[in-house]
């Protein structure tokens, strides 16, 4: 691997320095632990013991790792950075557009970029991507254009036109947690079809309170379905904190009750996310069944542009998490390793903003949904009843 210099820690090697042993905002008794995991991430990081898998600290320093921990190459780290910055700029510009009255309610990804970018980079392009609705970065990795992404929040169903062979993904899913079941069926079906594709399913931590979370985990466990469940735990389900969402100390530990492994990772650490999802995807592809990865992260922005987070959370908490910004962290790493320069950082940010601006102009220019489309796609052939309703509307 063309990765950064790393020391190889044997199975019995002394643990590298424990760093950043800071409590998470979730208040879990978690301490970040160093990498001594020849046995594998899922075996070594039991969430029930308060362990959180982390590789890149807030200063941009990568922990020494053992063999078997997959690391992003330099090229991948740079690509991840570019995608995360683009995601951030797409978000920022959308908020600005919303304030100008040009963009309806928009869901923000700010602060959570490393989760879906790292996860999508860790699976094959033909593995199934089953998003919730805060996975802009992952969608960019999968090849969805900014224009198409904006089109969704702009309010046009053509944004969801995602041919299978091109994207292997399902569209954004608003009904919380419901998409997890599709991932289970997709994984079951791919195995039935003789394919080794797996499904990567996203959800927020609030989804774990939904019945479909339970049904999806249970079915995936019983069927040994090749699914990587990735929960972005940003601690806040709109205004409800994790402490009021669940009496469970962690989300990841729920996996054990369903008979499969769960792990907590630092979701603002692209290296940790990438490594955990790579390991989870391998587990799923080898027919060993599902895994549940809980990415600890934070929504730096509002839930949507219609939300005012100052009503329910403190600015001190936000400031604390701003210091753990996944983009800053990766930036520091890249600077330390001289993989990027300060000028390139500024230039890339500007370029990303320009890209977002140009994309939205295209989105605004795109024709609105026409009335025929509102009727045409309900069924493969339009029933006469619908045809009559369409004619009435047109006349």
């Amino acid at each position, binding site marked *: 691997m063309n990765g950064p210099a790393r020391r190889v820690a044997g199975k019995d090697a002394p643990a590298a320095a424990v760093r950043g042993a800071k409590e998470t905002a979730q208040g879990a008794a978690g301490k970040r632990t160093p990498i001594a995991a020849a046995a594998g991430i899922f075996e070594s990081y039991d969430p029930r013991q308060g362990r959180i898998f982390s590789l890149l600290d807030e200063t941009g320093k990568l922990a020494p790792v053992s063999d078997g921990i997959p690391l992003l190459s330099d090229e991948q780290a740079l690509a991840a950075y570019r995608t995360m910055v683009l995601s951030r700029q797409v978000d920022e510009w959308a908020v600005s557009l919303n304030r100008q009255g040009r963009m309806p309610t928009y869901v923000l990804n700010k602060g959570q970029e490393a989760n879906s970018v790292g996860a999508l980079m860790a699976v094959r392009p033909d593995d199934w991507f089953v998003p919730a609705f805060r996975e802009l970065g992952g969608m960019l990795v999968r090849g969805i254009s900014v224009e198409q992404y904006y089109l969704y929040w702009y309010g046009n*169903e*053509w944004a*969801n*036109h*995602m*041919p*299978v062979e091109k994207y292997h993904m*399902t*569209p954004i899913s608003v*009904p919380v947690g*419901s998409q*997890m*079941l*599709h*991932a*289970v*069926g*997709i*994984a*079951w*079906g*791919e195995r*039935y*079809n003789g394919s080794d594709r797996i*499904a990567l399913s996203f959800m927020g931590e609030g989804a774990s309170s939904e*019945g*479909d979370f339970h*049904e*999806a985990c*249970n*079915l995936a466990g*019983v069927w040994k379905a090749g699914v990587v469940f990735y929960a972005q735990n940003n601690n806040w389900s709109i205004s409800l904190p994790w402490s009021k969402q669940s009496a469970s100390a962690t989300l990841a530990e729920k996996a054990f009750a369903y008979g499969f492994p769960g792990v907590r990772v630092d979701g603002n650490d692209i290296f940790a996310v990438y490594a955990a999802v790579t390991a989870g995807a391998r587990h799923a592809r080898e027919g060993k069944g599902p895994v549940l990865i809980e990415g600890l992260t934070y929504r730096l922005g509002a839930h949507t542009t219609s939300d005012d987070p100052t009503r329910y959370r403190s600015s001190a908490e936000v400031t604390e998490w701003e210091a753990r910004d996944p983009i800053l962290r990766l930036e520091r790493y890249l600077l330390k390793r001289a993989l990027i320069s300060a000028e390139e950082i500024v230039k890339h940010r500007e370029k990303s903003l320009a890209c977002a601006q140009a994309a939205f102009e295209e989105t605004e220019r795109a024709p609105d949904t026409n009335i025929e*489309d509102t009727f045409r*796609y*309900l*069924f*493969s052939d339009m*029933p*006469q*009843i*619908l045809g009559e309703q369409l004619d009435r509307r047109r006349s």
Partner: protein
Amino acid sequence: MKVLTLIEAVTDALRTEMAADAAVIVFGEDVGLEGGVFRATVGLQNDFGEGRCFDTPISESGIVGAAVGMAIVGLKPVVEIQFSGFAFPAFNQIASHVSRIRNRTRGALSASLVIRMPYGGGIRAPEHHSESLEAFFGHIPGLKVVIPSTPHDAKGLLIAAIRDPDPVIFLEPARAYRAVRQEVPEEAYTVEIGKARVEAEGTDLTLVSYGAQMIEARHARAQLAAEGKSVELIDLRTIYPYDAAAVVESVKKTGRLLVAHEGPQSFGVAAELITAVMEQAFDRLEAPPTRVAGPDSIYPMPRGEHHYLLTTEHLVAEARKVLSYEP
């Protein structure tokens, strides 16, 4: 030709399509080893293996949600909800995904699948086992909703549903499962979804029904014939898209309409058909079109079922009113 009951015709359709297409898979609660609580899937696991006919945990949303995923990767899931009264936990998947994925992806993805469920009362079942949900499903844009009343239609409609590119809710009248026997072709055939069937011609009154209620409708027709009245009996067969044209055509001939269904009256199927007739055949009516339907009440437990279900006498009494109407 074989003589089959309605439920045997369902099994026959499933076996026929599983044999013809490896993409067809059947799953649900107790459908594998046991062959379903009504025995609709009996023998299928034995014939096609556990990989194609299997039991699931008690997980209605899971069954339907997983079926959506399977359909996305090209399989044809035919799932069973054990009783329609248990479909409620799956409503989110049905209303938010099964019915919508084709529209919201502009045809890129589709949930081409069949959800079978026994429905309706009269089987002396416990609470939550006797509901008639066709109006619920009919109200969800993007679903086809089918109800057979005869073994021949059950096989042909189910094969049509399995081959249909759109999701089909296939409601099986539990009370009629073993009440009717009929000759059914051994080979595969389809009955077109969206087409009503004129079961018996007549000139004085159009009587429309579907599902198990057709049993009483047939008796009512015979009883009225003895009174010298000629009733045209239509089996609607498809709730959505409903065959308004067939009903309107018939009423243009008879001038009178009675719609009978077991499910609750308000916002029911009868209201829709009567509206179609009012809009399209108003000037041909000789009496106000009317309906006889289940009450807007909770389906009672077995000792009170008779307060809910419509008998032949109910239908005959309503029919006489329509027939004797003088402006």
